[in-house]
């Protein structure tokens, strides 16, 4: 009989882990409190992107992106996977310098990238503001539609999906449900997004993951308005300020012609209502980069929550000496990094050589961080 893996959470990370574990020979059961993609996976952007905030992040995102790339030919149409590429646009000399630095760094790490000046930028994306002075184009970045991607991965895994089951505790070889009911398995993976740590505390500190709220707006179809996922380079400066809130221009053309606009970042928000002040800042930011956006009809605005850790890297690995396993805290990159996370996790479980250095992702680092205060 196959060994049995219990995966908690049917977001993109749980789905990817289920698929990977099934491939490794496990019979997988996915336990989901609500329904597949009930959490962050339903709210985000689905930009599959190489990111270089840290060496570890680049390893994880680059590996993940190539795993997505391998899947491309198999992905069904409803995942709307496209090789849109990313355009990191620079508004001033400092950012232009960052374009060059990023370019050089990406090339040394095998990430394709090309520099565009003011002129060629205009021909790539005519609606960009004319005063933007350059950009880095990363042609191999992708765009997917996350809820359908998660559903596909789940189906691929052949896992038994049990919905409406809220797990209260996760242990090395069993999970406890409401009312003291227990389910046994040969291993347990916690992939419950921002709700993961309460399932394993006190082995890990309860507040090691903080939700970081983000706003998004989608327009009616406007085919051809933009070709790339376009992100301001200032994003790097604004994205990770722990204090207060920030906004950045982040535009995604959906394959159907809709334009999806982000993004904002806020800690300590309890309500998931759209906040006028953030929405305004986010839109004004976008208009500065693409003035013609003003005329597009917006049909829906919403918010989502990113599960953020103190060092902006996910928690992938074993909790304590015995387990359970953890795959959570993917902040604003979990769609991208779901596949790399699952690959790393399964190699750690099997004891094979990991695809990249696993140490920066070790969940135990939370304990060190907590004891430092």
């Amino acid at each position, binding site marked *: 009989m196959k060994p049995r893996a219990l995966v908690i959470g049917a977001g993109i990370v749980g789905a990817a882990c289920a698929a990977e574990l099934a491939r490794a020979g496990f019979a997988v059961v996915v336990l989901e409190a609500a329904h597949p993609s009930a959490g962050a996976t339903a709210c985000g952007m689905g930009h599959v992107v190489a990111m270089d905030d840290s060496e570890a992040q680049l390893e994880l995102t680059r590996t993940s992106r190539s795993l997505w790339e391998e899947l491309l030919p198999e992905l069904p149409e409803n995942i709307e996977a496209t090789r849109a590429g990313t355009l990191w646009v620079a508004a001033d000399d400092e950012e232009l310098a960052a374009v060059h630095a990023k370019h050089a760094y990406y090339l040394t790490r095998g990430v394709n990238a090309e520099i565009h000046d003011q002129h060629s930028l205009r021909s790539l994306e005519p609606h960009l503001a004319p005063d933007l002075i350059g950009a880095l184009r990363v042609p191999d970045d992708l765009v997917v539609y996350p809820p359908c991607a998660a559903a596909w991965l789940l189906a691929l895994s052949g896992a038994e999906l049990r919905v409406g089951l809220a797990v209260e505790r996760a242990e090395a070889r069993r999970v406890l449900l409401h009312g003291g009911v227990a389910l046994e398995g040969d291993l347990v993976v916690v992939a419950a997004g921002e709700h993961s740590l309460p399932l394993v505390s006190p082995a890990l500190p309860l507040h090691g993951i903080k939700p970081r709220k983000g706003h998004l707006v989608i327009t*009616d*179809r406007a085919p051809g308005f933009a070709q790339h996922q376009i992100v301001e380079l200032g994003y790097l400066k604004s994205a990770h300020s722990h204090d207060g809130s920030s906004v950045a221009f982040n535009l995604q053309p959906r394959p*159907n012609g809709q334009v999806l606009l982000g993004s904002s970042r806020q800690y300590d928000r309890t309500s998931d209502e759209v906040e006028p002040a953030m929405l305004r800042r986010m839109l004004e930011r976008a208009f500065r980069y693409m003035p013609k956006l003003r005329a597009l*009809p917006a049909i829906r605005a919403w918010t989502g929550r990113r599960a953020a850790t103190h060092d902006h890297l996910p928690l992938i690995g074993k909790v304590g000496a015995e387990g359970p396993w953890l795959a959570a805290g993917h902040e604003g990159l979990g769609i991208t990094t779901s596949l790399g996370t699952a690959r790393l996790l399964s190699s750690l479980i099997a004891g094979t050589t990991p695809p990249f250095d696993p140490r920066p992702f070790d969940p135990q680092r939370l304990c060190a961080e907590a004891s430092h205060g």
Partner: protein
Amino acid sequence: MGDAAHAHAHGEHDAGHCTIWLDGERRRAPIGASVAAALALHGWRGTRTSVSGEPRSALCGMGICFECRVAIDGVPLRRACLVTVREGMEVSTHHA
């Protein structure tokens, strides 16, 4: 033939009508009529193409369904059932 189409065909220019442009064609429409009605009066059957390519036109008549949407004076996504015709108005069913 509807009243407006009739008046147009016979070159009548009475006070109860105004001139509008439907997909670039000059037409007369009764004052007080909705844009959706004006389109129907002049034989426009489908006024929008759905995302899978089907012809569609007004369903609810009261601003709910967005099936009647057209561009009016260059502004997309206007609900033709809620907008009253106005002299010189330009209606486009191609960029809705």
